[in-house]
Structures are given as structure tokens and as C-alpha cells.
């Protein structure tokens, strides 16, 4: 059984780490979570990003957050990746599998997965 004592132990472990993390977040992954996004399947996409980033040991430089409607509801779930000094990348028609792939290839490997971007979808 999960107990509050376990949560207490997590707190002790994280207390120092969290201070270190403040001010980081070189890469921001933002998932659109308005009605359109949620209806199209944004919840599992968000959770896949959270899991892949953390299990992949990338949490020190990557933050995953939620936002409202990004504006192209027909292409939801939509995900934006912001990286310092780089142009924003917008991924469309996302699912959990694509999310894992993007963490591997783009976030970890530094190579944008062109075929899932809005640019590729529109052309």
C-alpha cells in the first residue's frame, strides 16, 4: 500500500534536488489542453511526455506544461516545443507513441521529427 510515510521519504529525497532545478528548463514542451485538445486525446499525450522525459533522465533541463487552445483545433492534439535560441516547433495530430518518439529523437537527440510538424502536415 502507498502510505504517507512513503510520500514523506520522497520529500526528504527531493528537498535538495528541487532547489537545484529552479531556473532550469532550457526546453519547454507545452501541450494544448483546452476542450478541443482533451477531446482529441491530449491527456495520454501529456502523460507520455511527462513519463518519457522523467524516465529518460531529462527532467533537469526539460519542463512539460499545459496550456489552453493553441488555435488549430482540427489538428489537435497539438504540442509546442520551445528551446532557447531556436525557433518554436509545433507538432500536430499527436498521440502517446509519437510523444515518446519525439522525446527520443528531438529532445534527447536534437533532431526535429519533421514528419509530425505542422509544416509537414500543411504542405
Amino acid at each position: 500500500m502507498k502510505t504517507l510515510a512513503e510520500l514523506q521519504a520522497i520529500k526528504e529525497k527531493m528537498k535538495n534536488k528541487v532547489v537545484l532545478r529552479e531556473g532550469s528548463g532550457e526546453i519547454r514542451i507545452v501541450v494544448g489542453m483546452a476542450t478541443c485538445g482533451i477531446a482529441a486525446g491530449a491527456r495520454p499525450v501529456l502523460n507520455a511526455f511527462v513519463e518519457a522525459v522523467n524516465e529518460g533522465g531529462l527532467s533537469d533541463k526539460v519542463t512539460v506544461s499545459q496550456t489552453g487552445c493553441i488555435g488549430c483545433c482540427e489538428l489537435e492534439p497539438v504540442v509546442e516545443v520551445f528551446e532557447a535560441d531556436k525557433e518554436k516547433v509545433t507538432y500536430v495530430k499527436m498521440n502517446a507513441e509519437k510523444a515518446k518518439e519525439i522525446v527520443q529523437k528531438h529532445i534527447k537527440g536534437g533532431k526535429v521529427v519533421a514528419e509530425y510538424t505542422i509544416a509537414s502536415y500543411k504542405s
Partner: protein
Amino acid sequence: MKELSLNILDIVENSVKAGAALTEILLEETEDKIVLTIKDDGCGMDEQMVKSVIDPFCTTRTTRKVGLGIPLLKMAAEQTGGGIDIVSKQGENHGTIVSAVFFKNHIDFTPLGDVVSTIVTLIQGHPDTDFLFIHKKDDKEVQLDTRMLREVLEGVPLNCYEVIKWTQDYLKEQYEGL
């Protein structure tokens, strides 16, 4: 929406946007129905707004002119023979209560789906807001109060991954007994 839990996620986002410090999500399940109550202490709406949120052409979003959160919930409830009710107050004791009744045995009842995922997603996205979640079924219940977790965590954010994982397992284990 494929699951009611997604409607819940969507409606609670409104509470957070209204500046709620605490949002209570209550599911009361009996043999033939589910009563959902979402109660927040956000800024509330005036009478005109309460009337108009049921209209799909009302939205606070600026990217387009249609909002669908409440109309979708209303549809999900009404298609089972149930319905929704909204009570909201501005000024003193401000807040909003959205309640919905669903008849479970109706052929058009949308399954509840992954409620744990909805709660975890809300906490992940809004770690500084409090949520009280209770799912009652017969004489048993599942409960999570982020205020209690916050007290234990003493400043460690509720959306730090280890905490999220703990919360998820904590809820899942409770659901095994429901």
C-alpha cells in the same frame, strides 16, 4: 468526449482558470446513476454568464468564437436521461458549482473511463491549486486531498515526478478496493 473523465478534466480546467484555490470533485455512484459535482471557490459568474455558458457559442477563449466544455457535459448527461445544473456566485463567498446526473444503465451512457489519469493530469498542470477528489460507490470511497499531500511535502512541488507517480499509485490502489 470518449470518457466522462475527460469531461471532468475539461470542466475543472474552467475552475482553475477562474482562479480557484480549491476545487472539489465529487462522484457519487449508486446502482443506477452517477452524480458528479464540481465545486470551486473561483471568481464565479454573473447570471447572464451562467445562462450563456450552456450555449456552445459562448467562450472565454480568444482563438475562436466557440466554447464547448459545458455543452458537451450537458449532452453527455441528457442523453442518459439526466441533466446538469450550474450555480454561481460572485463577490462574497464566490464560486461555482456544476453538477450533473448520469443514468448508468442507459444505452447512451458514456463510461467514466480513467479518472485517475484525469486527477493526476490536473495536479501535474496546476501544482499550486488544491483539489479534493472523492468517488463514493455504495459504502466505499476513493479519496485524495492535495492539501494533505502539500502538508507532508513541505514545499516539494506536487508535480515533481516522484510525487505524481506516488499519487497515481495511491489512487489506483484505492480503486482496486472500490
